[in-house]
């Protein structure tokens, strides 16, 4: 039993103890560092939400962009946003390290130009229904008073069109809107 004699029991114990203490110290340091330099990273849902176009149109089947962002974070496919189109899909694929896939045509198609809603104001009866439907507070008006869409705020989500009992809301492209605004302003000898 030569080898047993060769082991210095005290030395072994002290070595083990030292290693244990070192490990403890290290773990404590790490803990402290973690608490001190804690990074406040933006939650994933917010990041996804920032990629979405914020039209709040609900074409994806969710009642707004944020709910869809939450659904994507839960694993839903990221190709259900027609207003965002391919650009949004690429951004989301980048963010989530998923594959770039084609837009799900079932949700609708990407509009070629940005659209916005316009109320034919002389037909409006002031029923407030479109105001309640607008997800971004872009329609102003009061009961039994004419309503109007604030063009700068409209996202073209189409949600106001369906509830209108008078069918007096049109969806037009921004270009047409500007043309109309111009001819309204100048009137004279101006045809588009």
């Amino acid at each position, binding site marked *: 039993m030569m080898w047993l004699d060769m082991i210095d029991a005290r030395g072994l114990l002290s070595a083990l103890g030292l290693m244990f203490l070192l490990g403890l110290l290290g773990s404590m340091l790490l803990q402290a560092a973690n608490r001190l330099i804690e990074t406040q990273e933006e939650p994933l849902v917010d990041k996804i939400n920032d990629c979405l176009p*914020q039209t709040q149109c609900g074409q994806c089947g969710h009642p707004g962009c944020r709910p869809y962002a939450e659904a994507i974070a839960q694993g839903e496919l990221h190709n259900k946003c027609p207003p965002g189109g391919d650009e949004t899909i690429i951004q989301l694929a980048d963010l989530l390290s998923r594959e770039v896939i084609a837009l799900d045509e079932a949700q609708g198609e990407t509009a070629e130009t940005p659209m916005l809603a316009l109320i034919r104001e002389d037909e409006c009866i002031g029923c407030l229904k479109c105001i309640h439907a607008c997800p*971004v507070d872009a329609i102003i008006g009061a009961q039994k008073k004419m309503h109007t869409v604030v063009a700068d705020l409209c996202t073209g989500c189409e949600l106001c069109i369906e509830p209108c009992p008078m069918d007096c809301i049109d969806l037009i492209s921004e270009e047409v809107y500007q043309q109309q605004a111009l001819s309204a302003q100048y009137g004279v000898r101006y045809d588009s």
Partner: protein
Amino acid sequence: MTANKRLTSVIAVSEQGLVIDTIKQPSRAKTIARLEPPKRLTYPLIDRRFGALTPKVKPGQCVRKGELLAIHDFQQGLNVHCALPGRVLGVERHVSLSHLSSASPCLVIDVEASQETHSEQHLSNTALSMPALHEPDWPMIIQRVAETGIVGLGGAGFPTAQKMPHELQYVVINAAECEPFITADERLIIEQAQQIAQGIELIETAAKPERIIVAIEEDKTEAIACLQKALPKQVEFQLLASKYPTGSERQLVRALLGNVPDLNAPLKEFGIWVVNIATLFAIKRAVLDGEVLTQRVVTVAGAAIAEPRNYWLPIGMPVNELAQQLGLDKKSGADDTLEWIHGGPMMGVDLQRQNIPVEKVTNALLLDPETNKKRQAKARPCIRCGKCEEACPEFLLPQQLLKASEHDAQEVLESLKLEQCLECGACDFVCPSDIPLAQHFAEAKVKLRTTRQTQSQAQAAKLRYERRAQRLLQREEQREALKLERAKARKARVQSAKPQAKVGTEAVKLADQKIVKSSPEQERFETTDSKQLKTELAKAQSIYQQAEKALAQAKKQNMPKLEQLEAHVAQLKARVEAAQQAYDQQLSGGSS
């Protein structure tokens, strides 16, 4: 400080930049000429920065020279005035400098239809409605500049009144005019040095700035001599090395004043006002002579112009009429409009054979096949020679910017400081591959701006959506709370209405009251109506039961006056019995 001492130092605005052949000699030597008035005047009703202008005249109306034609609804200093007497034809769609690809509304004036004669337009006979100001203070000057529609005549076209600081510290008078061919400002200085000096004095007495610096390129010797003679001594004079580009506003400020203001903040906030010398002349005319801005000096030059020269042109004159008067249209052959370039060969706009009117910003109209050829040359691939980097006055990296703009990498573009690009075209000029770099950068800048705008709009939409959701939630909560409150109130009301067997002394009191109410004189039931009797019986019974309950309670708690209570209860019992009896009697009586 002597005049000669002022001229000793020559500074370069940027260490980089180009030394190019300026080709100014031919037009520099000739006096500014006048032409016949045009048949039509066209005024675009769209400002390239601020959008639509609102016309103030009606079709068919006769307008005088200097009459107000259009204003901007919200922005100061964009007023358009009529350059010649005539009649308003109406609003028509024409191309203009800011909208070359598609027609936009323009106000058209028919000059021939005017009843008045206009044999000779002279500088001084223009003051129609504005009185000349005498010893005006600074706000009055700013007001007048806004009213007369003076914009930056150097080419930017920004409303001058909006650029004028209320507390003026430094004035930089920009006479650099660094683009080749153009001598409009130079010629104006030579001919009108006296009036320019008056303008400077006007500003000095009204605003009392710390420093007034006139910056001019060193090769304009005649203009420098004229200014030196006319200008007051306290005005600083700074010669600039003739290196393209020297006329850029921020670069001038950086070179002259040393401090580099934040790129995004307007110079106005630092009390700095950079003003083109032609604009200064227009201000002098507006303030001291009451003249509105209706004409300007335009250099007509280029290799295809036989006699390059400066002209006083009415603003609104179509370039085709200019070509006619100069006898250029006969040479042009098949195409009826010549290939004009608006502005200088470096930064100017190719008019694509469109007939646009002279605008306030038109400092030159060039017919130069050489420039056109260079502009239209097919771009070849970049060979990475690095010449563009040496030329860029802002020390940007055009090569990398180009690559990033081709890939639409907006973050990279931002980090490469695309926003600082002056679009001066120095990189284009040196590029051996004829790549239209400045054009790429201009487009990338627009794209970057649109992306930012959509982003900010999306952010705003997001915020509104979130606030709305919050509001709806809050309303729902309020509604729930109100519902709950109402339900509670209702319950409380019902409970308070229900007579309860109350405990303790209150119960005794209650029983007492009941007993007193049912006083003995009512004990006889004399009505013969069975129904009434029945109700009386039921009443008596309920009172008795309540009283009994109260008694039980009182007993349990050992209340005082128990005997009295007991007596009452007995009385009530008797009463019930009496009622019962009467009712029974009535029933039997009724049946018998």
